[in-house]
């Protein structure tokens, strides 16, 4: 018999609608269409523009000259920028590592807590997390500035007579960065740790493993997806961060994010800023590609 059977006459529909109704591929494409169009238009195209821009030059009055050259990139090879780049990488790594070290025991504690306590503890982590980050940074500025809260406490405890001058130092920036990114690390870690079934840990103990070995050989490896998700959620934004160095670091601490921001808003050298952005983006993509190859990320990313 022929492959398509007789079509009953009660299905009278225009052919495009029929195509979508009968063809699953068409349905899928229709549903993803708006998202794809929007993102290509407002994400891919702008990025391509930036890419092109990075090969152009700045004119006398700040306008863009259409001369293709690599001068922006060679300029980036200058040790100044090299240092800034490395510094940004360093800050990113340091922030990630510190948040991981500080956040892991907390996430572990919350994951271990009995259910009712767990929601309360999680709630307490979420409240500052959802609060606007500039406000939180400001809180630290209040504490760390000369004559501010920390100084007051230090003086009161007779530890020192001099103001500490912590604000506008790299240390202040680190404190701010970790403070900002800590919840981003805690939440995926928590999700990962919570998923570990009790029975698995009990089985390990039953087979003769003391608590620290259960942790090292069972808990820790099983929490790796959470660590990876947390790392991505922290490292990438941390590298591109300019607000915190701007507010808390003063002129001394410049990250690549600040460079980009300055080029676009004050120095008006857009092509150069574009080149710096491309470098930052390449670094980020490489990192994501390499790291995200480990499977099972998306659930931990959805907090």
């Amino acid at each position, binding site marked *: *018999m022929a492959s398509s059977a007789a079509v009953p006459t009660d299905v009278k529909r225009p052919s495009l609608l029929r195509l979508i109704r009968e063809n699953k591929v068409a349905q899928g494409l229709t549903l993803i269409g708006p998202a794809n169009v929007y993102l290509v238009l407002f994400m891919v195209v702008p990025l391509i523009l930036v890419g092109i821009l990075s090969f152009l030059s700045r004119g006398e009055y700040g306008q863009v000259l259409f001369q293709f050259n690599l001068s922006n990139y060679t300029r980036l090879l200058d040790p100044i920028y090299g240092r800034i780049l490395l510094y940004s990488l360093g800050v990113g790594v340091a922030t990630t590592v510190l948040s991981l070290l500080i956040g892991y025991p907390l996430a572990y504690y919350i994951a271990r807590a009995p259910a009712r306590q767990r929601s309360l503890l999680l709630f307490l982590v979420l409240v500052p997390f959802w609060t606007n980050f500039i406000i939180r940074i400001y809180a630290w500025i209040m504490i760390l500035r000369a004559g501010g809260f920390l100084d007051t406490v230090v003086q009161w405890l007779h530890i020192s007579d001099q103001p500490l001058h912590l604000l506008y130092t790299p240390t202040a920036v680190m404190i701010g960065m970790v403070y900002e990114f800590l919840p981003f690390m805690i939440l995926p870690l928590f999700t990962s740790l919570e998923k570990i079934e009790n029975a698995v840990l009990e089985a390990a103990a039953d087979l003769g493993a003391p608590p620290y070995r259960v942790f090292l050989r069972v808990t820790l490896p099983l929490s790796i997806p959470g660590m990876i998700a947390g790392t991505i959620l922290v490292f990438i934004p941390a590298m591109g961060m300019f607000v915190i160095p701007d507010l808390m670091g003063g002129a001394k601490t410049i990250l690549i994010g600040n460079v980009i921001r300055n080029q676009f808003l004050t120095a008006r050298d857009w092509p150069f800023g574009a080149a710096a952005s491309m470098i930052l983006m390449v670094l980020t993509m490489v990192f994501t590609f390499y790291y995200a190859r480990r499977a099972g990320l998306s659930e931990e990313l959805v907090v």
Partner: protein
Amino acid sequence: MQSEFAVELRDVVKKFITPEGNELIAVDHVNMQIRNGEFFSMLGSSGCGKTTSLRMIAGFEWPTEGDIYIEGEPQGHRPPFLRPVNTVFQSYALFQHMTVFQNVAFGLEMEHATKSEIKSRVGRALEMVRLSSMDRRRPSQLSGGQQQRVALARALVKTPDVLLLDEPLGALDLKLRKEMQLELKALQQQVGITFIYVTHDQEEALTMSDRIAVMSYGRVLQVGPAVEIYERPTSRFVADFIGESNFFDGTVKAVNQKKAVVTIPAWKQDLQATLVADAAAGDAVVVSVRPEKIQISEQPKTNDNCLEGVVFNSTYIGSDTHLFLDVGGQQVKAWEQNRVSSLDPHLFYRKDQKLWLTFPAENVLVLPKE
């Protein structure tokens, strides 16, 4: 009814493409005729094509070749909501965000029935499944058995020509399942519509069905009432899948109408047998004998088909004893009902005991060797 059959599958083929890109033939040239008002079951293990066939009747899949006919009308690519059949799903598929009443009423809403009509029909449907008091509840508040009955009511309230049931009792515990089997059967006879039932549980199929289609690897091996399937299987697969059976390879020696003489090389002996299909002398065949048909005695008999065996294992089931004997190097299963109501160990069969087995000729079936 316009047509001779409620549902008909004519030379239906269904092919799928696996994620790896291979072609999978789920349904392989299936022909089925399901009569009006009958309880028809499709029986087979997973992957045999029974569920796929059911889904094609419902309209969730379309045949690659061939067509489905409902009341004589070819269905082609007609979507499910335009077919006069309704389905009871394995997972019940109740709408969690609606109450029981709303669930059952849904199908009537789609028919644009009036409010009062909906109220009375839903009321009657819930009464039929004995869930009238639960109409305000949500599915999450019901037990598995209750959810299943809601699914049933929801499908039946539309008075479809045919009801399709996809392993609806699979998730229930044994006792409940047996109760529901009887209830479903009674319901079907009461309502009088055609039921097409898919299951992998042979006992279920045998209990409830008017006719059974045994399927394997996308093909229908045999269709018939329970008795016929059980006592006259037409293939080794069916004889093996339904109930239990002993199988011995042999060659046909002589044929006389419905009877035959088969030589069993392993025993160098001839058996008097019954033919299920045509055969000729010299054919290589498989002989099938069900364990419960074998007569066991402690003395040799002079009948045909009497063989000597040694017990190597015996299992006491309570109502029966299952014996496993070595007969000339071949393993033979024989069941016997426990008529004896005594605790005397000497009355029970023992290991290494020598017994005589008689296979009555009408129970020795000659099946094609595949």
